[in-house]
């Protein structure tokens, strides 16, 4: 990904030098030409095109904001209800993620989303121990986390 971005910058700078007009708009045009060239030559790279990766980052961010707002509304309902109806539970959640940064990201996302906080990551990094504030169905909570965040993180790191 970093290589492709650098290459794109290099093409843009070459375009600026070729046209000999040193303005930001020339650089933008050169960058767009670089994008087209990258698309044309995509079969020579081992990774997928970097704007695909950027797009999945953006999707992850949007999912995250949606879940953040939903989680806050659910916490607010829980806290402001006259009668406290809690059923906290600490459950183990297996994860397929392997890299350190993926697990850190997943843990942060889980902590900021509906009714769950990561308490402990097991030593072999295969299991996250999650505290849920109100669990009706643990399986359902695990599945929803897997469906949204784990899938999105895997999508970002797919090469």
């Amino acid at each position, binding site marked *: 990904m970093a290589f492709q971005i650098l290459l794109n910058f290099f093409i843009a700078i070459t375009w600026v030098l070729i046209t000999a007009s040193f303005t930001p708009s020339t650089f933008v045009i050169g960058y767009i030409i670089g994008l087209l060239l990258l698309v044309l030559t995509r079969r020579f790279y081992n990774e997928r095109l970097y704007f695909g990766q950027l797009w999945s980052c953006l999707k992850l961010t949007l999912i995250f904001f949606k879940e*953040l*707002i939903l*989680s*806050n509304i659910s*916490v*607010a309902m*829980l*806290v*402001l209800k006259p009668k*406290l109806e*809690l*059923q*906290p*539970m*600490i*459950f*183990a959640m297996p994860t397929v993620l392997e890299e350190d940064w993926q697990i850190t990201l997943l*843990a*942060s*996302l889980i*902590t*900021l989303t509906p*009714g769950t*906080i*990561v*308490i*402990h990551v*097991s*030593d072999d990094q295969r*299991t996250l*121990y999650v*505290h849920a*504030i109100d*669990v009706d169905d*643990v399986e359902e909570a695990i599945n929803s986390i897997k469906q949204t965040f784990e899938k999105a993180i895997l999508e970002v790191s797919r090469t």
Partner: protein
Amino acid sequence: MTLIANIIIALFILVGVFFTVVTVVGVLRLPDVYTRAHAASKSATLGVLGILIGVFLHFWWIKGHFSIQLLLGSVFLFITSPVGGHLMSRAAYMSGVKPTELTVGDDLQEAIGEQKSREED
């Protein structure tokens, strides 16, 4: 135009203040460390974020000053606040703070018990 801008700014700040109040009520009402960590780490993040965005928009639209520090502040808040919530509840768990009576299940206790018995062998 200024009216619409002011309404949007006021909305952001009101939402921020509302969630900050929810945080306070949650910390007071909820029964144990872990459930309080929920209220503190989630609602406080969104509350402060709402206020920061409101202030940012006010300075941008009304005063004509684009303050990048406020945006950076909200990004830093997003990175650090879940880690803070995680570390506090983990430290509480590891030093043996019991979860509330209401808790239905505790997988972590079993896992730690297993690890201890393995280390003793």
